[in-house]
């Protein structure tokens, strides 16, 4: 493939998919901050599932009553 081939394909590409007009790339058509806030709130509001808390409690109890399990736990981590 030579430089002429590349130039021809580039021109075909530009005719088929013209560059984005300046007006279209100037900025979004709506205020996105509200969408951003909604996204932030949605992520903050994600609750921790009850079984995660149950697992944490079980592991904590295990470590309190059987301290020897700490080494086993560390080995498996």
């Amino acid at each position: 493939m030579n430089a002429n081939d590349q130039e021809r394909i580039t021109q075909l590409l530009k005719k088929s998919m013209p560059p984005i007009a300046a007006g279209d790339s100037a900025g979004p058509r709506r205020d996105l901050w509200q969408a951003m806030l909604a996204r932030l709130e949605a992520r903050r509001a994600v609750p921790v599932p009850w079984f995660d808390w149950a697992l944490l409690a079980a592991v904590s109890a295990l470590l309190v009553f059987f301290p020897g399990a700490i080494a086993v736990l560390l080995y498996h981590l």
Partner: protein
Amino acid sequence: MPVLEQPSDVLRQFCHGDLDAFETLFRRHQNEVYGWIVRIVRDPAAAEDLTVETFWRIYRAHARFDPSRAFQPWARRVATNAALDHLKATRSEAALPDSLSAPLSPDPGISDELRAQTARAFRRLPAKLRVVATLALIEEQPYKEISEAMGISTGAVKLRVYRAVRLLRKELKRLGIEP
């Protein structure tokens, strides 16, 4: 809008997760980020969603940002990655959006069928090559800006452009089009 005038103060507060500082940065840079993304994905609705996604990624990474460095190049790089992920996720056969003004006034020197086939062949390129080819060949962005946005060298950008053109030529030939 929060009153945070000094850019360095804003960046420093942003690093600590300050929401007002983040809003200041968002409002200051959203148009530039959107403009960069829409050039890549060529779909205004997707570009708006990806602008929010970009700033979400930026907010999550606030603790890793170095306030002594410029915000815009970092934001553009995050935006490029978000757009790249979008292109990888969307099917290559997806129709071109018709909400941009440019496709509504196509070049009269090219038939609708040829235009559609060329666009289809272009969308079959790997996403990384499409991003580089779109920015370099269609949008005529400087190689240096593309390399900074993608986190690769200018030599790698040139190589990707070459590979994109070569693959596109092969695909067009397969469709019976001799460019």
